[in-house]
């Protein structure tokens, strides 16, 4: 079976530049809801002085990762952030000071067995850095009765244009990637690991092959340079040939999929004990807004606002749209106070969108030929218009992962993917 894909335009101006550390922002806004699951409760009050790496938010909920202060300074207050899903989440505002003192409790964790490793992973505040934000310790502490994981898949596909933060991770810290893989394999008991990298990044493939040469259990595989390769179901199939069926997890096929930046962070945490407080973020955008030379990757503390990133970016004029994430699956942001969260991998500054209005469907079937999980977007759209829930269930509308390939390819510029999301909502509600 061949996975349906689309070919996206290439934008990688930021790829071959080393990551820079710009000046610190004056304030950071740290969201209490940085992973899926219950949001954290703040552990500090306005007026408190916090140190870099200090635990400032934790939750007793099952599916949450703790939140740490990314800078040292004074807590100036609490604010609310509106997430794209429409949920208001609490956030702590910290005014940065000039000292940037590290919290004294920070030291490398002592890891001896599976339990202590999982506890260390939880304490690190690690979540899936690819964008989903699933807490890493839960992914690794999987239900052993359900299935046994025999393959660790490292997702370094990075299939969306503009984003190069995972690529820079491989180029700058290849040994951390290997170290992280070996730690997870050792303590979770997974016999082999596969690293998937898209074919348009030959340097990264070569680098990973070079550093993994001494470890026969780690294999680097080349993925086609097509979109979407990084989607969980797709990458499992491309790497192992196993299908992840509807309602199943990659785990049911014996796979655990982890983002390359997550795995590299774990290695760094085990070595230094500094929790997840800094993020590598790609800053890029339309060439009319941001010069080729200004496209770059930066290390910024979690909680840096878009306002500060815009200053760093060196824009030629005001952007019409700002997107957090990639141009296909990312979300448009309107509030300049929106902070960088753990899952933010890129911020794009774009010009005016294409205002072509939707025109009637010409039934060309292109959307059907690009759907990577073989859904029928055309029929799903029709069934949604008729509010036919039975039909939507039959068409598996709830499997849609909103990769937006159908909207991208549609010559009539119809909002197919948007209706797919609505259809999914309708099916899940009923």
């Amino acid at each position: 079976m061949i996975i349906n894909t689309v070919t996206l335009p290439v934008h990688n101006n930021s790829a071959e530049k080393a990551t820079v550390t710009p000046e610190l922002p004056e304030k950071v806004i740290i969201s209490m809801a940085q992973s899926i699951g219950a949001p954290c409760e703040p552990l500090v009050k306005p007026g408190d002085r916090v140190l870099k790496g200090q635990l400032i938010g934790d939750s007793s909920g099952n599916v949450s990762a703790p939140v740490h202060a990314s800078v040292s300074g004074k807590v100036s207050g609490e604010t609310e952030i509106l997430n794209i899903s429409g949920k208001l989440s609490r956030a702590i505002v910290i005014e940065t000071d000039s000292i940037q003192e590290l919290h004294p409790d920070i030291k490398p964790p002592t890891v001896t067995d599976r339990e202590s490793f999982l506890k260390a992973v939880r304490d690190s505040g690690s979540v899936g850095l690819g964008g989903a934000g699933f807490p890493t310790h839960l992914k690794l502490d999987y239900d052993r009765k359900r299935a046994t994981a025999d393959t660790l898949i490292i997702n370094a596909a990075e299939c969306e244009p503009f984003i190069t933060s995972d690529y820079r991770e491989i180029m700058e810290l290849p040994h951390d990637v290997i170290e992280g893989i070996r730690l997870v394999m050792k303590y979770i008991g997974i016999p082999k690991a596969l690293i998937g990298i898209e074919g348009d990044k030959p340097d990264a493939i070569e680098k990973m092959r070079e550093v993994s040469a001494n470890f026969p259990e780690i294999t680097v595989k080349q993925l086609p340079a097509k979109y979407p390769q990084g989607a969980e179901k797709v990458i499992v199939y491309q790497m192992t040939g196993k299908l992840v069926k509807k309602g199943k997890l990659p785990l049911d096929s014996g796979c655990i999929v982890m983002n390359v930046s997550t795995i590299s962070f774990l290695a760094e945490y085990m070595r230094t004990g500094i929790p997840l407080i800094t993020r590598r973020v790609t800053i890029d955008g339309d060439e009319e807004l941001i010069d080729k030379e200004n496209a770059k990757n930066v290390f910024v503390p979690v909680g840096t606002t878009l306002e500060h990133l815009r200053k760093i970016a060196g824009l030629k004029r005001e952007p019409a749209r700002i997107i957090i994430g990639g141009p296909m699956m990312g979300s448009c942001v309107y509030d300049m106070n929106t902070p960088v969260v753990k899952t933010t991998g890129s911020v794009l500054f774009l010009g005016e969108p294409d205002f072509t209005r939707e025109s009637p469907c010409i039934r060309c079937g292109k959307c059907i030929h690009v759907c990577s999980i073989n859904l029928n977007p055309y029929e799903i759209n029709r069934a949604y218009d008729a509010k036919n829930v039975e039909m939507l269930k039959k068409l598996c509308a709830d499997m849609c992962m909103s990769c937006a390939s159908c909207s991208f390819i549609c010559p009539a510029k119809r909002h197919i993917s948007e209706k797919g999301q609505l259809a999914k909502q309708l099916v899940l509600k009923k």
Partner: protein
Amino acid sequence: MDYLTPILFFAGIGVAAGVILTVAAKLFAVEGNVIVKKLTEQLPGTNCGACGFANCSKYAEAIAAEKVAPNQCKPGGVAVAEKIGEVLGKSVNAAEPETAFVFCNGKPPNSPDSSAIDEKYRYNGGQSCRACELYYNGKNSCRFGCTGLGDCVAICPENAISLVNSIAVVDSRRCTACGLCIKACPKNIIRVQSTGQRVNVACSSKDFGAKVKSVCVTGCIGCKICIKKCPQSAIQMRDNLAEINAELCDNCGICASSCPMKSIVKS
């Protein structure tokens, strides 16, 4: 002469077939349930679903089988209830006439007379409230108010809803209280109530007063003046929002005239 033969031939076939079909229809006629047929004729035929059945004929079948009360047709009102009573040979009390009401009368703070509502961002997606709701709770600064993209307008079978200054308004004379708009509205700000209820709090915002005031000039700020003024003690505060108890309210309108935000309206 050549063309006369085929004309006569086909006309002959037509007459013969007509006679055969008429005779067959009389001879082999299947007696349907006469009451169901009569009831279906009396019902409005909009298939709105307000009675709880998929369409009018399904409801008629249920009435005939005495599975359900015969006064559930909301669009029909008194007239249809009387006719159903005639068919069934007994008196049917019509359900109380009801109408839908949109609990939002939002106006932006900066330009109270402008046609647009206060927006957080410019929305270019599909022109549907539910699609807009996917992004940051909709485009409007008020999280609770009407999105104004007309999902309810599109679904209303009676064309009773229109957009006035980007806020949905129900024409109570046309509304049949079928309730389709309630299901279509992603903000859940439409409710069906008795047509006798003339005074309403046209706001759904549960935010605190300062926040409401920053995005809307007609939103309820929770000042409780209406509670103090109400002679019937029919108003209470729930989640920073005044709520009128329809059982106690006598539609005097004192609250509407004393509301400093004009968020209570009397129709």
